[in-house]
């Protein structure tokens, strides 16, 4: 957006300042995330750029922290890297253990949150739904209530119910935390949904289940998937509940990072962080593709 030719000098200076300020804000947003990527290849155990790194000397860079990420916790990390070594890594490496847990917990809780959440969003979007506002407020509250309070509540509840230190307990807790996101995204998709399509399907003889499968689901699928992604990320990134109710068996990636930051801070964490950044770029891309698809579908139906 260029300045019009009649702009005054003051306006031109102001415009420059404004653009510079915005550039600063975007730099502030992205620089901290980008800066740790090269640092994760540091050959030295420091959190800062060494002279060699700045001179782009290959000796300043190494993959040692990525290697450490893989081998940390292994029984024989220095053995020859054959099948047995990889089996050892798969079974004993702490970060692999944490990654496995994060995926198991994340996927299970996402399935629960998405299933129950989508059903509930269908109910909430019906005009006949009684107490709509109150129910909606309750269902969204896990997102608003401070995590420390939810975690504290679960801590007591789970110790009494025998769910502390179990996968089931953490999966249920994470499902609960992911539900608001599913509700919000699916309800938003349903808001643009043409309800006469349901009546049309019914008048053509489709059963409610068929109507759901053939008419409703395909149209709201992008919303459901993006809700599921939100739920997954919520679980994948959650640490407070895990901190309160998990034992070593349920150690997840964020908990591993939390412990790493508090205890033996080493650039291994930067290597883990870099991998997670790549992971979030992949998620963001998926979500963007979904958004475009929704817009296309909206364009068709509207």
């Amino acid at each position, binding site marked *: 957006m260029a300045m019009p030719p009649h702009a005054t000098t003051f306006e031109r200076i102001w415009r420059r300042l404004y653009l510079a300020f915005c550039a600063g804000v975007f730099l502030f947003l992205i620089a901290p*995330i980008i800066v740790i990527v090269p640092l994760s290849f540091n050959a030295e155990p420091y*959190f800062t750029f060494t002279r060699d790194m700045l001179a782009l000397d290959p000796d300043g860079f190494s993959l040692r922290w990525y290697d450490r990420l893989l081998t940390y916790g292994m029984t024989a990390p220095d053995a020859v890297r054959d099948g047995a070594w990889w089996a050892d890594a798969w079974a004993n490496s702490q970060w692999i253990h944490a990654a496995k847990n994060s995926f198991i917990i994340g996927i299970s809780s996402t399935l*629960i949150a998405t299933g129950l959440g989508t059903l*509930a969003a269908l109910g909430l979007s019906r005009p006949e739904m009684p107490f709509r506002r109150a129910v909606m407020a309750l269902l969204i509250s*896990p997102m*608003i209530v401070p995590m420390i309070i939810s975690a504290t*509540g679960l801590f007591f509840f789970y110790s009494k119910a025998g769910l502390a230190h179990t996968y089931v307990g953490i999966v249920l807790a994470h499902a609960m935390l992911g539900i608001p996101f599913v509700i919000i995204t699916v309800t938003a998709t349903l808001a643009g949904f043409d309800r006469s399509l349901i009546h049309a399907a019914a008048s053509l003889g489709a059963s409610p289940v068929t109507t759901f499968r053939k008419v409703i689901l395909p149209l709201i699928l992008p919303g459901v998937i993006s809700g599921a992604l939100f739920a997954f990320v919520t679980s994948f990134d959650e640490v407070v509940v895990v901190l309160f109710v998990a034992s070593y068996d349920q150690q997840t990636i964020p908990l591993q990072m939390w412990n790493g930051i508090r205890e033996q801070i080493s650039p291994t*964490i930067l290597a883990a962080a870099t991998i997670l950044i790549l992971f979030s770029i992949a998620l963001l891309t998926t979500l963007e593709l979904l958004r475009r698809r929704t817009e296309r579908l909206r364009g068709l139906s509207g």
Partner: protein
Amino acid sequence: MTTAADTVAAGDLGPLTTGDGTPLKTALARATRRARLKALFLVAPLLLFVIVTFAVPIGQMLYLSIYNPVFSDNMPRLSSWLRDHDVAQVPGEDAFKALVLDLTEARANRTHAQVGTRINYERTGATSLFKSTARKIKRIKGPPYKDQLLALNEEWGDLHLWTVMARAASPHTAAFYAQALDLSYDAEGDIVRAPENRRIYGHLFLRTLFLSALIAGLCLILGYPAAHLLASLPLKYSNLLMVLVLLPFWTSLLVRTTSWITLLQSQGVLNDMLVSLGVLGDDGRLQLMYNQWGTVIAMTHIMLPFMILPLYSVMKTVPKDFVRAARSLGAGPVTAFLRVYLPQTVPGIGAGVLLVFIISVGYYITPALVGGSSGQLISNQIAFHMLQSLNWGLAAALGALLLGGVILLYWLYDRLVGVDNMKLG
């Protein structure tokens, strides 16, 4: 019931009925009821799930803030004596007899330390008093109990201790809320403000509110121009810039916190840069972390997308012609902005500020990692009492106060923005 007379009165047509002769009104009511049930039926499983895994646990936790039966359960005789009598002075032989019998039993059950800890919440030194007395309790053979106990430790003759025990005799207590509000009971049992050096939580609540407001304010200052730029650029460019907002939004919290530790450490990137540029001497490195600065900087970064996204979605709907019209009618750029553009973006400002403030007030992870001791928020203190000091009643009371505040803000958010209108990404 419709009678023939009504039919005549209503005219010749009679009431409308469906095919099978049911009055239309009844049929409609029935259909509505069925539709309502269907909607409810779809929501029910989730509602049940959220109630069981969320509402009930939190409710039970909050109950701990007013319910602590440790003393009344483990010291049954003394508790019942204390409930029946008014403690205006140090009581006599009966009460001491109950105390000795209860303490002997508590020692056998190994609960005397817990009991001492419960009294210790309101009177420091009680834990060791209970422990040491329980250790020597066998020396007391028979009556008179009072003199022997006072000989063991004369603290038992202190009225304040007895008023504290009298309050603990009831399993329901307001003591934890009093403590969370920096109030305490004096020797006579009246509520007074705690001594200045023991007022912790009021200060902490104020700090939490102040830092959250500061973070929300900083986010607004940084986010408003950025959102404006995003909303005014052609889609081709703004989508590209949007990635710079969404990538941090989608990046793990711990990754972002790690990044800030890397940057802000005294041996970190930022300080190194300033030193090599000659802005700072090597001995003048800035302490940017493990204090309030750490919390404010890292949390502003984490919250900024929560400000930019709602602002952006509101700014997108503001027609550009309005500002142009104002300018062509002679308004200066400042007037046009203040009187035409800004008022139209107020819903976005409200949504963003409230959202950032609500999330910040309850934040735990980032302050715990980069806040040091001066950058801690109320959540950190709750976690401390939960996991370390094990004063669960106080943790629950602090939690209840925090939750009350957040619910109030959430209600405000719902009134102003509407939870249904929340935009995600």
